[in-house]
């Protein structure tokens, strides 16, 4: 029989908690983009229509501005930002090119079903310099997608439409099941947007991209229902530590 001096009590396990998986993904993306040379900036979640729409070339007639798509607050004086792009507008107004900003945070749209929530998260980036072009944008997007999904993922660029970029693209990755899945939107910054921010569009051009964090996290972690992120279920949260 062993002697008393040999006894080691069980290890006292102090269980760590965890950062929310959405913030983990957001921080991972922002950190990675900071490593690429972007500077992280923040902005308010309650925005004016001017910053959320007008400055971004989203006309009064654009469907996104309707009451059924956007949350208006305080007697229609403000909106809950529908994307993080207004942060970039504020960034461009506060500085001069060349510039490279990244911003992430909560955004709001008037949706609530199995695949859409009224609140979700985005990370968006913008780079403005002389001679920035679509081929540069593709390089950056490849870098970002490979960071998240690895080097051997198949990527497809498709033409799309965003009022603040022209040309605009959406990017898909090929799933293991052989299905193309949309993961982000991007494009060359519309010269109108640059001019709105006092940037000479004849001298400077820009690229911009935006990712929905929930969508990326769902694809990355294999989560089927977007609502799982916000039930605050401990059995869910403790799988991300």
């Amino acid at each position, binding site marked *: *029989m*062993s002697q*008393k001096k*040999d*006894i*080691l*009590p*069980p290890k*006292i*396990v*102090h*269980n*760590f*908690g*965890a*950062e*929310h998986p959405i913030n*983990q993904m957001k*921080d991972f993306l922002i950190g990675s983009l*900071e490593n*690429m*040379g972007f500077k992280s900036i923040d902005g308010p*979640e*309650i925005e004016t229509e001017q910053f959320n729409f007008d400055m971004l070339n989203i006309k*009064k*007639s*654009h469907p996104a501005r*309707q*009451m*059924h798509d956007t949350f*208006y*607050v*305080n007697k*229609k004086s403000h909106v809950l930002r529908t994307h993080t792009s207004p942060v970039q507008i504020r960034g461009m107004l506060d500085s001069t090119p060349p*510039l490279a900003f990244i911003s992430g945070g909560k955004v709001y749209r*008037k949706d609530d079903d199995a695949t859409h929530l009224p609140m979700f998260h985005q990370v968006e980036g913008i780079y403005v310099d002389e001679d*920035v072009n*679509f*081929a540069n944008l*593709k*390089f950056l997007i490849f870098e970002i997608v490979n960071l998240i999904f690895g080097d051997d993922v198949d990527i*497809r*660029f*498709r*033409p*799309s*439409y965003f009022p603040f970029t*022209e*040309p605009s693209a959406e990017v898909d990755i090929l799933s293991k099941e052989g299905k193309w899945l949309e993961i982000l939107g991007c494009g*060359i910054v519309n*010269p*109108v947007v640059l001019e709105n921010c006092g940037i000479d569009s004849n001298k400077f*051009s820009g690229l911009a991209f935006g990712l929905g964090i929930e969508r990326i996290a769902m694809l990355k*972690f*294999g989560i089927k229902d977007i609502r799982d992120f916000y039930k*605050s*279920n401990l*059995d869910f949260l*403790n*799988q991300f530590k």
Partner: protein
Amino acid sequence: MKIAYSHIVRHIKSSPDLSEVSEKLFQLGHEHEILNGSVFDIEITPNRGDCLSVNGILRDLRLFYEINLDDEIYDKELKNFDFNFTNNAKQHCKNITFLKIDIKDIPKNYNSYLNDYFLDLGVTKKNFFTDVSNYISYETGQPTHCYKLDQIDNYIKLDVIKEDAEFFTLLDEKVKLTGENLVFLDKNNEIINLAGIMGGKKSACDDRTKSVIVECAYFDPEMILGKAVKFNLNSDAAHKFERNTDPICHNYVLRRFLKIVEQHTEITNVEVFTDNSIDELSNKISFETSKVNQILGTNIDENDCIQYLTKLGFKYVEDSFITPSYRHDVKTLNDLSEELARSIGYDQIKDKNFTINLYEKKQTVNDELALKEALIKNGFYEVINDPFVSFNEGSGISVDNPLDSKRKYLRTDLKSTLIQNLIYNERRQQDSIKFFEFSDVYNTKKSFKKRVLGIIASGRVDKNFKDFSKKITNKYVANILSDYISETDLNFIPISRESINSKSKNHISYVEIEVISNGLSKHEPKNLVIKNNIHNYKYNPVSDFPKSHRDLSFAVKDFAILAKLEETLLNFENKFLKDVFVFDYYNNTSKEEIKIGFRFTFQCDTGTITDEDVDLAMNQIIKLSLDFNGVQIPGM
């Protein structure tokens, strides 16, 4: 928008197969699904209203194929008729044409192309003129509306009404019109058509209608926008007018309409009335190949640029391109660059490396990160809640168009949502709940926005034998934060169990801290637990079925096997076993015996776990344990 493959391919000389057409549509930016192996369900982007038709899609596909877009049209001369039309809304409708048609007989059967439209897309037939109108909209993208001639009395007025009104749609739905609306009115000033959205019941055609007035208009999209949703009307016409239509297509569209009518029955009379105030439409874009290549990072030849854009309907005139009347979305060189990028294919543009060297990267650790680290190290989980609440605490910001009455305001603190998180997990048998949330909160006061940290905790301190029997207190939470905030500065808010209808006796610690600026932290965290690598998680869907806990205590006389017993049980595998840990440990030196207790948690993913399943697993565990010499289970 649904378009049948067969309706497209009959216009394409080379008859490409469905998968090839699908690939080309993706290259053009027309994302779609294929339904039943024969119908493209295309998600047309809001700027491409011109593609909401068979002809619109074919115009884009001309980039790749030789396409016949010369459908037969009615080529006889059209007499004008004296129509009493008043346009009091010229700024919203600059071009409108009315066609008066009388037919001899109502056709009993449709020609194959018209019949296929209904069959292939599952569209329900209504009556002859409405069916032709629907088909014309599908083929050309231009909605038309047919009024029963005898209900019109040679008079129509287009006007903007600002007062509330009632309107019965052709589907016999009563709509209460509010706000500013563009409407067609009859002689009695009764609304007969909600312009661009849906016609009225009174003048709707039926299966006996032989004489109609067909209206073909160009409406200002802003005047139509959002109305169909507002009045809960499902309208294909509104969808098209909102996205803009071709302002000068009316002659073609109506002649095509007439041709289809003529192919089915004898037209006994046809007359036309037009009210057109459209000026010069031409949109000319100065073109420089070098600038396009600069935007795209490509080296496309000028002749290729001209060829591609010409195929898409643009006219090259003296170093400029004139856009076709249906392309409202093309106004600048960047727009033309996108057309060219679509033409060669986005995937054919080779990526180009670049680096950004603008900012010096500083490794900063702010208070938020430091607090987050301290909490995570002590077993706290971060949660994120949406900001909508049902109540206003006085300075809450109201949502003008909430999703429902439970989400009418923005929260001004995090308490109510964190309490909900606590209750949710207590109901799921969690006995140690430690949550925190960082969020901006807003109010109507001058401060407007503040950044806050909310912390809520209740139950056991931790899942180890030292902490299992300890309960969370305010002191416990204060100790965790002590490196950043002194206990006296923490304002714990009492939350009674009665106030949240809870029978638990566990104390609830709740504290909210305003994160004003950096400077709380006495020292920088050394080992940041915030992950910068998100690649290693193996997620399993969470079961909503109840858990079953079993505790098992052992008396160990042979101290040498203690570690082996612990290793065996902590690594025991069973498909229902979700968690196992040591919750009790006591070294009884006088008896030279160690008591060690393990808690096992079982849960089934597909139903409520049965006692039999748990007993089976526990019997395996007991057998394994008792196989060790000197291990006993007291009472067994």
